[in-house]
């Protein structure tokens, strides 16, 4: 997508700017509600990655890289690390690796919330999916130049 900016449609670009934060927010929403409604780490990750890729198409690769701020490769590492980490608490309690642990939190305004290691795991999945898609597509787009 080596698109000189002057050829870019203004409408697309503005939409891109406005759409992006909404899509990222939506991806987080998908991630967090995943345990109870359709969604989850895979879907959330794909939404976020798609949003950034769309942004890349609307502007250019360098802008997209600046936007992500971290190297997508690091996201892979962090995602995997978080996913593995979420399996450890069970291990310390003498259960098999990856046994889920839950606790109830009393959050004002929300009431009782169940928080557990599976959520942490899903966040790891989310990061890995974003990292994978962005690593592949951003590198490919850059290679084109």
């Amino acid at each position: 997508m080596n698109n000189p900016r002057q050829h870019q449609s203004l409408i697309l670009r503005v939409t891109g700017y406005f759409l992006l934060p909404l899509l990222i927010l939506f991806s987080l929403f998908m991630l967090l509600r995943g345990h109870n409604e359709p969604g989850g780490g895979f879907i959330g990750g794909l939404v976020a990655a798609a949003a950034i890729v769309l942004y890349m198409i609307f502007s250019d690769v360098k802008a997209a890289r600046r936007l992500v701020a971290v190297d997508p490769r690091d996201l892979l590492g962090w995602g995997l690390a978080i996913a593995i980490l979420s399996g450890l608490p069970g291990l310390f309690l003498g259960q098999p690796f990856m046994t889920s642990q839950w606790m109830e939190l009393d959050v004002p305004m929300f009431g009782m919330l169940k928080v557990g290691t599976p959520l942490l795991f899903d966040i790891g999945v989310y990061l890995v999916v974003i990292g994978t898609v962005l690593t592949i597509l951003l590198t490919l787009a850059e290679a084109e130049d």
Partner: protein
Amino acid sequence: MNTLLAIAVGVLYTTAIYMILRRSIVKLVIGLMLLSNAANLLIFTSAGLTRHGPPLIVEGSTEAAAVVADPLAQALILTAIVIGLGVLAFAVVLIHRAYEVVKADDMDQMKDTDT
């Protein structure tokens, strides 16, 4: 409906294999994409089709509805779809690299290991 979908799976497999057997590497890529859809649908159909029974428990209820689609098959396919994307990307880039080295679209010119 199961029967019809099974036939569709067969058609997908046929087209996928046919494309994979071609000498043109671009066609090989297209075959791979068809194949991953075919395999996912194969699992999906084999697990049995359910209308109006998503594997969700309705808010407020404590038990699943009496008829619910097989969640295990769905979990399997969900990861397969995403991995399919990763593997496809890998294959496409690999083929592209091979094309750059061999400078040919013909699989038959890629049979030497020492290029």
